[in-house]
């Protein structure tokens, strides 16, 4: 094998490897982004379903733990949220979580904790809808209807 042939083969290998690596990195970034958003989207739904089931069947203490876990996971997600669209999705999840917490506190007879949770739910709800007035009952009824619809699925 002559020196020229060796150089040709080596160049072919380097060029092939380089081009392949560039495409590989591009594909990895794309797949990783897709996987990450799929994983992130699963957090609110899994936590919310669990909180909803616990709210319907468990005692106040366990139902409270479930909804506090949901709020904690939403807090983690909010810190990582990079754009306004994911933040607005989180606001709805927060609204339902705090409304549920208020309903748990109401059934446990904790009036002050219920008020705090309901106020927080309204703060979250009004974040993107500053002029919209909603009553406590409307928010609680909306959550009950949402839970009933989820159960029917």
């Amino acid at each position, binding site marked *: 094998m002559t020196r020229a042939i060796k150089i040709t083969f080596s160049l072919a290998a380097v060029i092939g490897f380089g081009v392949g690596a560039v495409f590989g*990195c591009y594909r990895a970034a794309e797949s990783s982004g897709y996987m990450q958003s799929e*994983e992130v989207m699963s*957090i609110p739904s899994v936590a919310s379903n669990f909180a909803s089931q616990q709210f319907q069947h468990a005692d106040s203490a366990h139902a409270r733990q479930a909804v506090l876990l949901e709020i904690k996971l939403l807090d983690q997600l909010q810190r990582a949220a990079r754009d306004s669209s994911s933040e607005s999705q989180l606001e709805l999840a927060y609204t339902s979580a705090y409304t549920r917490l208020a309903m748990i506190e109401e059934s446990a007879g904790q009036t002050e904790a219920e008020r705090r949770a309901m106020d927080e739910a309204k703060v979250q709800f009004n974040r993107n809808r500053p002029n919209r007035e909603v009553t406590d009952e409307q928010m609680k009824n909306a959550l009950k209807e949402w839970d009933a619809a989820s159960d029917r699925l």
Partner: protein
Amino acid sequence: MKRAVPYVALVICIGCGYLGYFGAARIAYQYKQSTSFSSLGKQDAEQLRETAQMTSAFALSSLLIQNNPSSIQNHVTSLAKIRSKAPPELWPILDLRLAKDYAMMARLEQQIGDSRAATEHRQSSEVLLRSLGWQDVSENAVTDLADAELRSRMKR
């Protein structure tokens, strides 16, 4: 020999391109995954990654359950694997799914007349539901839970 050189070079180029593509994709994917949520601190990012991986695996595996005892048993095994890697604060979420799986197994076993296995699985379900604070863990309540789960799977 000289005539074959361009063809051999092309084969080498394509072969190395293939190796470069898969090697780089694998390494870059693992790197991207390990640095996701880097806007958070190291510990928070790690915690969120673990949570996201658990909830995603859980949601996906729950979708794959079919209404037969062997499929549910496979799901119970896969849930045990997910649970072993999940942070302890998320265990209740998995325990509730496990309780539903046992309830479904018990119901299906009852329908085919395997009353011993049905009783065993119903009791496992009751223990888990009790640990989750469920107020009604009677036989009827567990059967209702199983029926609701089986119905919702049939709709999918």
